[in-house]
């Protein structure tokens, strides 16, 4: 599953952060899931659970909190701001966007002027919002 690669990146990144900040133990990783990528929370958390078993001990007892971030777009041509609910996409197109969110520019367009030239201003993919731990 694609979610495993993303879970792997979150764990690796958090462990790197702990090394840099000299944390002895990570207690909480706050993650944001962008609506556009539509990552499966259940698979992601299962992957996290499995992957931390073989990861650096600094993260072995950490909790993982996921919050959803709504996707927002801004058209570069007419400046209209829009959400994912205002644009149409097929199931297959949504799957392609799930793999690479930038495919939104191939399949989505501004609801007002129909341009594919827009910025993804929020809710693109997986981000770490914060990492808490003990020094």
């Amino acid at each position, binding site marked *: 599953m694609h979610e495993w*690669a993303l879970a792997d990146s979150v764990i690796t990144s958090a462990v790197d952060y702990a090394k840099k900040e000299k944390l002895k133990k990570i207690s909480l990783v706050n993650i944001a899931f962008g609506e556009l990528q539509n990552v499966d929370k259940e698979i992601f958390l299962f992957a996290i659970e499995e992957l931390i078993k073989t990861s650096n001990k600094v993260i072995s007892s950490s909790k993982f909190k996921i919050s959803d971030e709504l996707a927002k777009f801004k058209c570069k041509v007419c400046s209209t701001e829009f959400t994912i609910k205002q644009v149409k996409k097929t199931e297959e197109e949504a799957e392609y966007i799930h793999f690479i969110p930038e495919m939104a520019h191939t399949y989505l367009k501004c609801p007002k002027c129909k341009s594919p030239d827009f910025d993804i201003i929020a809710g693109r993919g997986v981000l770490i919002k914060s990492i808490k731990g003990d020094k």
Partner: protein
Amino acid sequence: MIDPRTSVIKKRFSKVKRVIAVTGWKGGIGKSVTASMLSLILAQKGKACGLLDLDFTGASDCIILGAKDIFPEEKNGIVPPEINGIKFMSIYFFSDGKAVPLRGNNITDAIIEMLAITQWGKLDYLIIDMPPGINDTALDVVRLIDRTEILALTIPSIIAKDVLERSLELYKRLKVPIVGIIKNNLVHSKGMGLEGIPYDDKLETALGCPDKLLKTKFAISLEKIISGLLK
């Protein structure tokens, strides 16, 4: 906010011995054919070879290799499908034959996503088909894949030569090794001191058929050149 994806890129390349970016600084000079053919030749020689098409706006390795009906497998990320022994990854798989209109930041994000989720496994060579010029893709590849080496392509033209010299100077400044410079579409036997591939009027009809491609004059010339360059 931390973007976690860049942290795993090193891990994804940990079993890749060499990364060769096939690049050139003008469009239409044969970069995609060279990158695809180089991958075919290396795979035929028994090397574990991957091909990554990063020319998002002009992704064409699928057409060159006749790899239109394959799709990556989802397994701890995405596993590139194989064609003629090459592990092949392209944005073409996700674009359904449509245009991919991306600006700079989007290109960077799409590259990071592909590098973070693609499971290459063990490779002797990963060949990257680059878009023309030193642009977002070139700077991102150099930044994100620390072992990148450049195989430069040019054509017999004063314009291409001038751009080539400026670009090579920049790569030297970025401390990126240059594996070699190949001159494509030679109509004369002399290649201004560079390794050359003669113009091959049969190449077009072999596109889409890897077995036919490997028998072209282009492939034979390229094989001779790389046996000297990729030691």
